[in-house]
């Protein structure tokens, strides 16, 4: 929004300034005529003001960086040709500076192509990683539902059905079935809650990263120190990814590392969010562990990077850098 507003304002200013410059040019023409119409000196001012107006006009266009550069180069070239013409033609000297400008543009085009090819490769790779991660996640949710809450609800219904059948024949047995039904309902609710938390923890949505990571640490069996320093809440996708870096890193340390202490640290570095999970365990964390691999896919899909340093004997550092800039 704000950048659109800036461009609009800029364009208006350009238009107003262009009119002012044209008026000045006209005024100079009158001055020249009034002063006896000698050597036509206003042409130099006209040339310079033409350069300024054309350059500002092109700058106000919503072009990409490369198109901007090309346009400005062309305007500069035309200006030089204009100077050559205004100075009475003669040897076509502008050919030299124009050749230099063209050479620079060419170099820039080559660099740009290389960069964009590398970017396309990266986007293709991280995108298929993101799709795969989402697919795995969905399959896991479906399985959890099928084997968890759904099965519990079937058991619940079965117990109620049996209780109904026994109600008159054997009230005591009916009561047993009802007690089991209630237990199944409780378990189903618990499983649905856990599943929902695994998809998007409510506390993260309600209170943000700091509270959500502190809540994670509360359930850990090892002392966990949490340090979250954020000025503003990051965008939702970044926040969720940061949370899962913390939760997966923590789960990994608790499960595999035999750590006696875990540090989770979240802070801003320039325009990125950095999440670091450090444990003093035995190291040897590997991405063959599905959790960490999924984490990398999740982070890279957001143009972030994940670094895992875990030499045998420890310590293990898992660090994600998630760019927040639009």
């Amino acid at each position, binding site marked *: 929004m704000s950048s659109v507003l800036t461009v609009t304002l800029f364009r208006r200013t350009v238009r107003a300034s262009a009119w002012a410059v044209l008026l000045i040019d006209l005024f100079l023409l009158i001055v020249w005529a009034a002063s006896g119409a000698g050597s036509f000196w206003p042409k130099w001012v006209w040339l310079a003001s033409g350069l300024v107006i054309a350059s500002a006009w092109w700058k106000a266009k919503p072009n990409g960086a490369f198109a901007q550069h090309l346009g400005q180069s062309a305007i500069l070239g035309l200006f030089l040709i204009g100077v050559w013409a205004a100075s009475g033609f003669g040897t076509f000297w502008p050919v030299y500076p124009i050749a230099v400008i063209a050479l620079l543009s060419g170099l820039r085009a080559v660099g740009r192509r290389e960069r964009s090819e590398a970017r396309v490769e990266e986007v293709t790779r991280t995108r298929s990683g993101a799709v795969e991660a989402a697919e795995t996640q969905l399959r896991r949710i479906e*399985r959890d539902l*099928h*084997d968890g809450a*759904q*099965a*519990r609800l*079937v*058991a619940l*219904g*079965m*117990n*109620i*059905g*049996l209780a*109904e*059948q*026994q109600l008159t024949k054997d009230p005591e047995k009916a009561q047993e079935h009802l007690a089991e039904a209630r237990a*199944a309902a409780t378990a189903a609710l618990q499983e649905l809650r856990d599943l929902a938390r695994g998809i998007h923890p409510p506390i993260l949505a309600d209170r943000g990263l700091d509270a959500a990571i502190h809540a994670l640490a509360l359930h850990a069996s090892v002392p966990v120190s949490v340090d979250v320093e954020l000025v503003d809440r990051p965008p939702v996708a970044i926040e969720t990814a940061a949370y899962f870096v913390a939760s997966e890193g923590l789960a990994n340390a608790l499960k595999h590392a035999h750590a006696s202490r875990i540090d989770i640290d979240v802070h801003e570095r320039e325009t990125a969010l950095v999440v670091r999970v450090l444990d003093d365990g035995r190291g040897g964390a590997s991405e063959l562990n599905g959790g960490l691999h999924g984490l990398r896919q999740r982070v890279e899909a957001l143009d972030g990077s994940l670094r895992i340093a875990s030499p045998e004997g420890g310590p293990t550092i898992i660090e994600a850098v998630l760019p927040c800039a639009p």
Partner: protein
Amino acid sequence: MRAVIAEDLALLRDGLTRLLRDNDIEVVDAVSDGDALVHAVVRERPDIAIVDIRMPPTFRDEGLRAALELRERVPETAILIFSQYVEGTYARELLADGRGGVGYLLKDRVMDVDSFVEAVRRVADGGTALDPEVVAHFVGRTNRLAALTPRETEVLALMAEGRSNAGIADVLVLTVGAVEKHVASILQKLQLPPSDETHRRVLAVLAYLDSTL
């Protein structure tokens, strides 16, 4: 009556075992994967095998594959597929041989214990028991049923579930005579020869539906 159960979730396996025993159906074996099911049925030759579709090791259609294998190897054992989801393709594969003694019910149906047990007995006796959801899959996708009146479509769906004329009359609050008329009309419109036995009619209808899918 003797039954074998194949269900990988212990919670449901135990519950089902108890439910059947409470209703005088002997559970001779309760297993948790397809291979064990095939072995148990070949060994025990039960009247019926109650089979979950998704089981280890692949958690895909393990149970259904085992069931199809058993249809060939132990034809006298009826198969009741008992699943958390309905897949029209699976029902079609199961019904493909056109013999009775097959059923496909959602696990939800176990909540009505009496009709579930009745369905188990019906299938074990060579009848059919298709879940209304399964039937909906067939009926909804068959355009040659366009000739049927809405009432006849209802009757057909109930027939496919395995109900007798009296059962259909109960559900639709009609006289048995009226149901018989509807059935005759359906069979005529679908160009199927009339027959006395409920489950044979159902199989004929299902075979017809199957051929039009």
